[in-house]
């Protein structure tokens, strides 16, 4: 029961009010209440004594009695001539009034005593704790004679390579003795910083970034839990483990703090060993995580370096040492520009600043060639990846460096080899050219002189002689054709293929026109069913293909009566299918692969002349144009050669599209 008096209102007044109020109310409702004269005065006195205390209660009793006697006890408005009943009821009332007052007085006393006791208990607790710690300490000292850890030294953490430096703990405790003892206990194993209230604790935590915080909750000024709440708001301190010293009574607070990420509780009074154990556990967990991270960094085959805002090297791994040839000691604390070639150092500092302003994960200089500088001065081609990280010591950049010397070497080798291959290809071209020229010349001679012999010296030759010469000529001609075909094949292999939209119908008509004489002389029935389709092809290549395929169709249907050749085309999805069908001698499909090979012939050359290269040229050409060729046939019933090419959209449709997208009317 809180006896809170609104400020500024004196007690006597309060004592007055309830009785007067009761009197007034009773007067108003006397008709209903009569004859209970004391009815409302009882609660009035109760209130007065409750609010105002015992004396107010007594005064109110007196006042109420007077008021009641005057106003409500018959005869009304007089003090004398009351009957026995009235006097008894008055006496009862006064008695009750006194009882209320007394009762409240005692209640008040009791509450006050309780509060005092609690405070005293708290105080006693603390003192007990101090005593216990002190005792433990003395016991330990006498047992082990450990040197005392002196005041915390250089608290700004050195750049760590491995955590050989002891973790830093922060003790926030307002009781100076307790604070000292905690500091001392923790100081045996760790570095310690101290603070004596929440505000100081917060400031020191932000400045020093401790590995562990041990804090009391009840402190003057800013208490423990608001300090923690504020701490957690800062990114780097979000994960700092916290041990809270709490008294038993703070149950609700404990639950709340658990939710806020307090790692552990130590109840007061506690054993120093308990605190140390918990601190150890938290710190070792933290160390384990850090160790894991360091192990990852250490074992990485790529160089890893952690660089702070000023460009100083904070952390690195063995791979980095090896890559750049610096022993560990020479890298610590150096700026990262040590690893950058001199000519690039200035720009690197600039880039670093720019990156710090807009940090993001990225590969550095994606299209540039990056170099690092080895200790011995030579430059190493590298690839660098940057990741900004938030650490306890502030924002830093985690940099991964990969030595790409080998990759560069491989690239160079490839480039060299490509150049070599290109040179060889050029040589081959020159060779082919020379071959064609040099082979054809003697052939001309052979053919020419044989002919001249036949013409000018026919008289000196007999039948047989003339026949021999005819054979010589034929041989020369065949060889000439062979050379031509070989050259054509080699050209098909080597030359650059264009990829244009080609009007099929036009090409077919052109080829048919070339062979017009032959078609007419053999009375070939030619059927053309070529719709106006477009295909992506090299025009000369496709001409060559059609020439060869149509030539074959005509050749092998020579003996049919009548020879029938059909050329057609149709669109299939995104491709164009062309076919040339004849009713000639056909071939057995088991030779399907062979007929497309070079020099493979299925017929005797005297029956069907040819060099055996035509279809090889066709296949090579189709391949290089991104198409396919195949054939279907039944011996004696002709053959159909199919060619598939990628389709093309008509150019006017394309330009219409672009015109539309450019906003111009189509």
């Amino acid at each position: 029961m809180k006896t809170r008096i609104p400020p500024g209102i004196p007690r006597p007044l309060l004592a007055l009010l309830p009785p007067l109020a009761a009197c007034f109310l009773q007067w108003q409702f006397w008709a209903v209440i009569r004859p209970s004269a004391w009815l409302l005065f009882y609660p009035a006195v109760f209130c007065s004594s409750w609010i105002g205390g015992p004396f107010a209660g007594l005064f109110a009793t007196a006042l109420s009695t007077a008021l009641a006697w005057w106003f409500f006890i018959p005869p009304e408005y007089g003090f004398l001539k009351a009957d026995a009943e009235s006097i008894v009821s008055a006496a009862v009332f006064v008695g009750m009034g006194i009882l209320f007052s007394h009762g409240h007085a005692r209640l008040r006393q009791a509450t006050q005593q309780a509060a005092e006791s609690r405070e005293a208990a708290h105080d006693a607790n603390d003192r007990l704790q101090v005593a216990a710690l002190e005792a433990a300490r003395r016991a330990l000292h006498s047992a082990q004679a450990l040197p005392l850890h002196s005041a915390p030294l250089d608290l700004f953490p050195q750049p760590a390579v491995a955590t050989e430096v002891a973790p830093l703990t922060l003790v926030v405790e307002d009781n100076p003795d307790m604070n000292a003892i905690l500091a001392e206990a923790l100081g045996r194993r760790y570095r310690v910083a101290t603070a004596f209230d929440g505000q100081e604790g917060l400031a020191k935590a932000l400045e020093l970034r401790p590995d562990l915080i041990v804090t009391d909750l009840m402190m003057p000024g800013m208490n423990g839990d608001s300090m923690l709440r504020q701490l957690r708001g800062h990114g780097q301190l979000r994960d700092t483990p916290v041990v809270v010293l709490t008294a038993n009574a703070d149950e609700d607070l404990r639950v709340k703090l658990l939710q806020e990420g307090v790692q552990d509780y130590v109840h007061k009074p506690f054993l120093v060993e308990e605190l140390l154990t918990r601190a150890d556990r938290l710190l070792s967990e933290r160390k384990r995580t850090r160790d894991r991270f360091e192990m990852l960094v250490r074992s990485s085959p790529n160089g890893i370096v952690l660089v702070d805002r000023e460009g100083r090297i904070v952390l690195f791994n063995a791979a980095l040492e090896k890559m750049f040839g610096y022993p560990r000691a020479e890298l610590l604390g150096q700026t990262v520009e040590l690893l950058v070639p001199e000519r690039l150092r200035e720009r690197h500092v600039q880039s670093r600043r720019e990156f710090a302003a807009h940090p993001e994960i990225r590969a550095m200089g994606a299209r540039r060639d990056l170099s690092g500088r080895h200790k011995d001065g030579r430059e190493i081609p590298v690839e660098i990846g940057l990741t900004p990280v938030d650490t306890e010591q502030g924002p830093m950049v985690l940099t991964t460096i990969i030595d790409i010397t080998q990759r560069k070497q491989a690239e160079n080798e490839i480039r060299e080899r490509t150049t070599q291959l290109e040179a060889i290809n050029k040589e081959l071209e020159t060779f082919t050219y020379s071959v064609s020229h040099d082979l054809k010349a003697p052939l001309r001679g052979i053919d020419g002189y044989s002919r001249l012999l036949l013409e000018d010296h026919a008289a000196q030759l007999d039948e047989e002689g003339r026949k021999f010469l005819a054979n010589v000529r034929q041989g020369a001609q065949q060889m000439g054709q062979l050379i031509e075909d070989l050259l054509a094949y080699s050209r098909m292999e080597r030359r650059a293929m264009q990829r244009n939209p080609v009007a099929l119908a036009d090409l077919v008509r052109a080829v048919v026109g070339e062979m017009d004489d032959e078609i007419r002389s053999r009375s070939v029935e030619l059927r053309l069913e070529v719709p106006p389709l477009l295909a992506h092809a090299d025009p000369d290549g496709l001409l060559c293909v059609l020439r060869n395929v149509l030539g074959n169709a005509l050749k092998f249907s020579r003996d049919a009566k009548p020879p029938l050749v059909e050329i057609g085309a149709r669109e299939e999805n995104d491709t164009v299918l062309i076919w040339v069908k004849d009713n000639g001698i056909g071939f057995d499909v088991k030779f399907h692969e062979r007929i497309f090979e070079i020099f493979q012939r299925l017929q005797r050359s005297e029956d069907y002349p040819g060099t055996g290269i035509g279809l090889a040229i066709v296949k090579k050409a189709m391949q290089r144009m991104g198409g396919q060729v195949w054939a279907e046939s039944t011996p004696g019933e002709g053959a159909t050669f199919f060619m598939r090419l990628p389709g093309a959209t008509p150019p006017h449709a394309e330009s219409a599209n672009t015109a539309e997208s450019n906003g111009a009317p189509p």
Partner: protein
Amino acid sequence: MTLSTALPGMPDATRAPPCGAIAPILLVEDNPMDADLTLRAFAKRKFTNPVHVARDGEEALAWLRRWEAGEPTPLVILLDLKLPRVSGLEVLRRIKEDNRWCNIPVVVLTSSTDDLDVRTAYRLGANSYIVKPVDFDKFMDVAAQIEVYWCALNQPPCIDRSAT
């Protein structure tokens, strides 16, 4: 039917140039058999203009000096490309770059079908590019056509020896 008289209204093959002397043909050909066959082909067609033969690029260029000295320039130069010492393309270039001789028609007569050769020849100013067939009959046809076209039909250019 001899081709040289096949065209009506044409004088016979021995055409006198405006300057008066009988105009020759210059054949630049290193292969002796090819040269011989060409000459015989011309002979078979009853071609009577003299045919001078240069056996390599240097001999061909020597002719340039002879024209300077006053000898009659040819009606047409038949030029093979694959020549020892100075190449056919080089000869072509020298002729076409010289303002005095650039108007003389040059017919490249070679066995090469190489695209690059064709392009370069035309770029350097060749008037025509003909591939020598292996077949002798065809070869004779080609020779005849060349002769008819360039020696009978074509109006030869006027040569200005003082041009620079």
